[in-house]
Each structure stands twice: as structure tokens, then as C-alpha cells.
């Protein structure tokens, strides 16, 4: 199985779904229209010659200052063909990406992680709650516009200043 065949078959089956594609170091990346991602992944999974049966990875990326700002990246693996492809979907702030939980159960937690850390909503997800951070957390810390946090490093010249504000625990 080579990249050109995959792209050709996908374009043949779903002509309007593919926006763009690129190839880097032998890996094919396909930019897919957001509302078509479920159809595309279902076709790639169920087509007997392609059979991308394994959703290896699902993650969010924040390209601050670009439109669309967020990207959801899917890596699919075909055990039969020993071939891997990458799908990408763009989304702006607040725009929901269709969920893949109906196709792969593993998408459930990975989408929750992307929602938790990036704030990308997934439409149709059965339980879109935070998965890593505490439930009462405010904001989505892996976004590029979130300050790195922590505190200033204490040296001898500024430790008094820092420790004056540090919330030390009482008995």
C-alpha cells in the first residue's frame, strides 16, 4: 500500500471530503473537512483493501494566530497493510469537531484529553468531561495563550519577597 493509492481511493469514494494533502518523510497527511471526518474514517476503516483498523493517536494542536486556530490530528494504522496515515481537521475557537467514539472506543478518552487540555469540544461525545485535571479547574492549560504559571525562582536576593506571598500551610 502506498500513499498515492490511499489518497486516490479516498478521493474516489468521498470526492468533497479531502481539502488538501501533504507528504513528509513518507507519511501522508490529509486535511479533511470538519463535517466529513466521521465518513472519511469510517471509509478508511471499513474499506477491505485499506482497512485502517487502529486509531493510534488523537490529539489537539494549538496554532495561535492562525485560522483555523486548532487542529485535531488523527493517526490511523492498518495492521493488514502495515501502513500509517495522518488525518487533520481544523477548528476555530468553540467550533465542535464530530466525535469518533462511534467508530473506536479509544477515541472517548483521547477526545476528553484534547477537550481537557485544549478546550476543543467534540460534538456527539457521550461524556465530555475533564479527564486529567481536577473537575473544578478553570481554563485549558495547553493553549498557547495560557501563561506558563508556576512561580519565580527564589534566590538569596529575592527569596524574602517570594516567601512573603507564598501560601504556606498551617498545622
Amino acid at each position, binding site marked *: 500500500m502506498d500513499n498515492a493509492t490511499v489518497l486516490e481511493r479516498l478521493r474516489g469514494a468521498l470526492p468533497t471530503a479531502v481539502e488538501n494533502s501533504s507528504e513528509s518523510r513518507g507519511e501522508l497527511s490529509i486535511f479533511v473537512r470538519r463535517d466529513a471526518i466521521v465518513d472519511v474514517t469510517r471509509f478508511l476503516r471499513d474499506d477491505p483493501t485499506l482497512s485502517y483498523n487502529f486509531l493510534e493517536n488523537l490529539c489537539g494542536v494549538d496554532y495561535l494566530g492562525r485560522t483555523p486556530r486548532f487542529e485535531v490530528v488523527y493517526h490511523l494504522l492498518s495492521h493488514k497493510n502495515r501502513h500509517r496515515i495522518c488525518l487533520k481537521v481544523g477548528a476555530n475557537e468553540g467550533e465542535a469537531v464530530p466525535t469518533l467514539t462511534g467508530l473506536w472506543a479509544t477515541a472517548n478518552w483521547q477526545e476528553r484529553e484534547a477537550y481537557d487540555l485544549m478546550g476543543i469540544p467534540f460534538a456527539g461525545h457521550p461524556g465530555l468531561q475533564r479527564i486529567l485535571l*481536577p473537575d473544578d479547574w478553570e481554563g485549558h492549560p495547553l493553549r498557547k495563550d495560557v501563561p*506558563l504559571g508556576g512561580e519565580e525562582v*527564589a534566590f538569596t536576593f529575592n527569596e524574602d519577597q517570594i516567601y512573603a506571598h507564598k501560601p504556606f*500551610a498551617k498545622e
Partner: protein
Amino acid sequence: MGLEEKAGDMGIVTTSLETVVNWGRTNAMWPLLFGLACCAIEMMGSQAANYDLSRFGMEINRASPRQADLIIVAGRVSRKMAPVVRRLYDQMSDPKWVIAMGDCASCAGVFNNYAIVQGVDEVVPVDVYVAGCPPRPEALIYGIMQLHEKVKRMRINGELRPLEKREKIYA
């Protein structure tokens, strides 16, 4: 051959109640079975045969905080774990002591970010800080010895006797 032969005719020993109580507390200070990260491996190492913490009456890690005197915070404390640490500390019966083992527990170490509590002293009051990433078992044992020195200075009403002029803080 027993101790009475070595001790000769010494039938009665006089000492202060404080000394006896503190002797008991230092020589059977049971730590809580509690490890958070890689420092816990060194903590286990210091309890195993090579370093053998049972020399100091600490071979039993109590799995219940109600039976523990000492909590060794071995590793980085995430914001999600912080309430758990505090709860364990609250469940321990008085008198109780805390050792912040390693750089992460002392001051968050390299993790100056949103996810890690910047020093466990924001959550529980710490008696001894042990530096190192992770500290070697010798360092942890030295920290425990320092804590023992502190406990020996405790008065019967719970106050801490100030160091006398020539007294060394040395195990």
C-alpha cells in the same frame, strides 16, 4: 548473657519523662506507606537491606495514616494530588511529622508550571527538607536523623526547646 550482666548492679535508671517519651518517639517512628514519584524508589532503597532503615525502628511502613507518625512526601505533588496529601496528613494522629523528600516536594524542582504544587509546604507543614533529585538513601536517612534531633528537643507540652549554644544540629 543479657543486658543486666553488662550493666552490672545498675537496677534503677533515673531520667526525665521528656527524654523517655522522645526516646520512644524517635526509635519507633513509623512512616506512612506513601510514595508519589521516583523519590519513592530511593525511599524503598533506604528501607531495603543495603541501607536498612529498620536500624532506626522504621522498618514498618504503615498503610493506614491512623497508625503512622511520619509522612515522607517522596515526589512531585500535582495539583490534583494535593487534596489527597492534605487529607492523609489530617488523618494522621498527633504528634505527626512531615519530611519533604527531594527537590520536587521541597520547591517543585524543575517543574515550575501549572500542574505541580510549588513545594508541598503549601499543603502541609514540613519539618525537614531533603535536597536531591532524587536524594540518595544516605541523604534521606540523614534527614530522618535531623528530624529525630528535632523530636528529641520537644517538650512534654509540645513546644520545641531552643538549641543550646554549644549544641550541634548533627545526627
